[in-house]
């Protein structure tokens, strides 16, 4: 079954030791599962998709650092409901803004917004290079005004490259709100992850 996970990433970032899902070598590859990954900018966490059998799925979700979107979330219209707290907690544990998630949100809409946040941070990394400007002591509550000019410029560059309406960003905008805002600007553009689109 086609499934989507949030898993930690591991690796030194070389061909020999690439940045990849923590469970690629222990669960996915040994079970013949090809996976596709979206990385959250500099962070060692990814959205990971694969055609995952039930046995492998059980092995994966036995790990507390793995979150599995429900089966068929992309077509079922299922809402997050009472599980919103679990989803919020695991996303926030990885530094991904999630307090905007509401019980009435569908898993598809949440997955799409989260994936769009990943796209924002990916482009930021592509512009700024190796050093993560969002690493501690920066928090999700750090305001735009507190970032260096280079980081502010990079944020605006992402907006310009994508023809985003950046009027919602001001000096008081927190990283939390900024990241979600950029995801909202991504809009309904599809996110491709190898074996499906969400």
């Amino acid at each position: 079954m086609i499934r989507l996970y949030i898993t930690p990433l591991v690796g030194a970032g070389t061909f020999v030791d690439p940045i990849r899902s923590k469970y690629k070598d222990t669960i996915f590859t040994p079970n013949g599962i090809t996976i596709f990954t979206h990385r959250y900018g500099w962070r060692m966490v990814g959205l990971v998709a694969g055609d995952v059998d039930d046995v492998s799925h059980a092995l994966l979700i036995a790990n507390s650092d793995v979150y599995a979107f429900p089966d068929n979330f992309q077509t079922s219209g299922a809402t997050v409901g009472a599980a919103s707290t679990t989803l919020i907690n695991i996303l926030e544990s990885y530094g991904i803004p999630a307090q905007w998630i509401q019980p009435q949100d569908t898993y598809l809409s949440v997955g799409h917004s989260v994936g769009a946040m990943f796209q924002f941070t990916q482009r930021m990394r592509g512009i700024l290079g190796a050093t993560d400007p969002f690493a501690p002591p920066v928090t999700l509550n750090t305001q735009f005004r507190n970032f260096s000019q280079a980081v502010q410029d990079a944020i605006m560059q992402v907006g310009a490259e994508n023809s985003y309406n950046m009027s919602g960003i001001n000096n008081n905008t927190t990283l939390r709100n900024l990241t979600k805002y950029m995801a909202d600007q991504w809009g309904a553009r599809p996110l491709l992850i190898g074996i499906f689109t969400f």
Partner: protein
Amino acid sequence: MPTYTDAFTAADGTTLTAYSANWANAMGSFAITSNAIRTNVADADCLAYHNGALNNNQWCEVRIAAIAAGGNYQNRGAACRASNTGGGAAYVFIFDDQTSSFTLGSFVAGSFTELGSGSASPAVNDIVRVNASGTSISGLRNGATLAGPVTDSSITSGTGGVSGYSVATVDTGVRIDDWLASDGIGAGFPFRSQPMAHMLVR
């Protein structure tokens, strides 16, 4: 629709950058053996890029000229949106002679992240191609998508290139040739419908 090609015709041991000023190293280096290229440093990721300007929607491909299945860990492949930005940036699609697999990935600031992979055994004369169209990145083998497409926003521009890795400094058994890069992405662009010699503009 610029198209650039290279057949890497030079004496054995000639480095890629000495062979042609069109090439620059972003990471590691390459050299020529039997009129094809291989990596030229030990235990280091290698990425070189061509100076031929392309639109941001672009693709790049190479032909596998020699392979040593089950041999030392080595990989080679094509790169697009390649540059020396931050110490090396590109989307790459590489084959691995030891694990007999293909990997789609990105170099950002010299750091390699896997985006996906494909289950197929590489063979001599396979055409290995990486496509970047907007934020859609994919790897193809012999004209068929093998990995992706995957949405990735990290890299927006650059040129065609080559990438690779070898355990040994001079490990000449795995080589790529008939490099080609173009910004003619789209259903209308023929997949190697012409012999290389007809497209040589280097």
